[in-house]
């Protein structure tokens, strides 16, 4: 049994001005696991993942990454283990070409030569930007810049990948791409953690969902459990709407059906019985 990829114990965090952002968070994520973190803005989702690569340091409790405490380790060192693709790509893009932008992370990790080219090419292919290699990033539209930000993290090939709102601003094709990337990462044995407001994306792509409210984890389970009717009052308290499929399932008395597939299956079974 390998160590969990991420393990927090009674993790608490307060900003220097005293604002409490995390309270006694106990979270363990298996290596190769896939977890979605949901909850309203300000519930602590982004604060939590910033502890995984040391951008924020616990004021109480501990954080372990791949079995080792993050303690005094430099962010530059933790970046070998954890890659975070932040929400706003315009807070990171600086290079004059798409290729150089994607190469920045791996180069910081000491990757060079053919290996670097290989990683950059693979990352650009994954997000569908291989045609734009030489383009100036600021000539791309917002949704493409967002995919570029994602590629720049993929190229670092970190065992743990964190995606902060990966589907916002993407059209149907962009969302499909993000789903495919998540699947590919899992296939390669990487751990994927996503913060998202997109409940369909969450319910259909993540076997485990963690719900946060006011700095605490209030629900943690499969989409079936988390989106079940019994959890709705808790979800409402952190402004999460269950996916439509879940709501229809409850209206039709079919139980918990958070995804399209589960709703259709439940409806078919109910029709067969009657």
């Amino acid at each position, binding site marked *: 049994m390998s160590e969990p990829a991420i393990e927090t114990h009674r993790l608490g965090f307060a900003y220097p001005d005293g604002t409490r952002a995390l309270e006694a968070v106990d979270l363990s994520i298996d290596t190769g696991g896939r977890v979605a973190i949901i909850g309203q803005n300000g519930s602590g989702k982004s604060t939590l993942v*910033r502890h995984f*690569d040391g*951008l924020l340091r616990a004021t109480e409790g501990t954080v372990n990454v791949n079995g080792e405490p993050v303690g005094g380790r*430099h*962010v*530059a060192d933790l*970046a*070998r283990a*954890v*890659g*975070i693709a*932040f929400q*706003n790509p*315009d*807070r*990171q*893009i*600086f*290079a004059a070409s798409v290729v150089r932008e994607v190469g*920045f*992370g791996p180069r*910081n*990790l000491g990757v060079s030569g053919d290996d670097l080219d290989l990683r950059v090419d693979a990352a650009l292919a994954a997000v569908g930007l291989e045609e734009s290699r030489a383009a100036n990033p*600021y000539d791309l539209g917002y949704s493409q810049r967002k995919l570029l930000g994602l590629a*720049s*993290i993929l190229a*670092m090939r970190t065992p743990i990948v964190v995606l902060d709102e990966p589907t916002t601003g993407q059209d149907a094709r962009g969302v499909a791409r993000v789903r495919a990337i998540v699947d590919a990462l899992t296939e390669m044995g990487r751990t994927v953690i996503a913060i998202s407001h997109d409940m369909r994306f969450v319910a259909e792509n993540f076997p485990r969902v963690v719900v946060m409210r006011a700095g605490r984890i209030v629900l943690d389970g499969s989409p079936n459990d988390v989106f079940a009717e019994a959890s709705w009052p808790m979800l409402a308290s952190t402004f999460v709407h269950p996916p439509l499929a879940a709501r229809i399932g409850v209206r039709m008395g079919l139980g918990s059906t958070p995804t399209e597939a589960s709703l259709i299956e439940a409806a078919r079974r109910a029709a067969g019985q009657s």
Partner: protein
Amino acid sequence: MTTAGHRSDLRPAVPAFVQQPPTGAYRSLNPTTKLVIAVVEALIAFVLRGWTGLLVVLAVVVATAVVARIGRAMLPFVLATIPLIASILLVNTFLYPGATDAIVHIGPFAPTWTGLEFAVQAALRVVAFALSVAVFGLTTRPDDLVADLERRGLNRRVGFVVSATLRTVPRILQRAGEITEAQRARGMDTEGSLWRRVRGVIPLAGPLIFGALTEVEEQAMALEARAFSAPGRRTVLRAFPDSGAQRGARWVLLVVLVMVVGLSVTGRLEFLP
């Protein structure tokens, strides 16, 4: 519905928190008066050579800060000058050209008294400057200054740029923080050697500038969508108390400024120690 005769009583009014002029002896001065005070103090501090003038100006600046009751809020303004003051002290004390009155010899380095004196004076000028900016910034709403200057015939755009710049500083700081996080998460070393940190400037400055550029166009369109380019004067929300005394004081201050600058530049104030 009420009758037309009563309607004026029911019309929405400008709320008190908007209308209320600032209270307090210094805050309630006309915005332009406060601007003139700050500019005159800062400029005189910089043109006067020697100790006497400098100390007098510094005393006046500190007195203004006390009268204005800005208290601890001025600390960030003073703290912001520390890197500049440190470099002024180091460079002048150790490298003052032509000075020979060494305080002590440390290997190849010989700090001099002449250099130290010059450095302390320069540092005090910076402090005087920072304090006069602080007094102005902390006692004046940007929007008030713009409205008052516009009333005096200044172009709306110039006023907007001044006012928006004053309010943009916290926004830029927040953005710089987000950028630093994103680049560190990509393995950029900001905790290592000095050289590595210097190399990190481009990935930090790049998004700051590009981000600002991409937003500028949207900002310009959003302003246009609210008739920013309309001709004529903008509506004034608050009355800015002005008085004959203030008007007189402003002219006196400006005349004093011109005289001091003139005398100083032509070398007629060199009798001051």
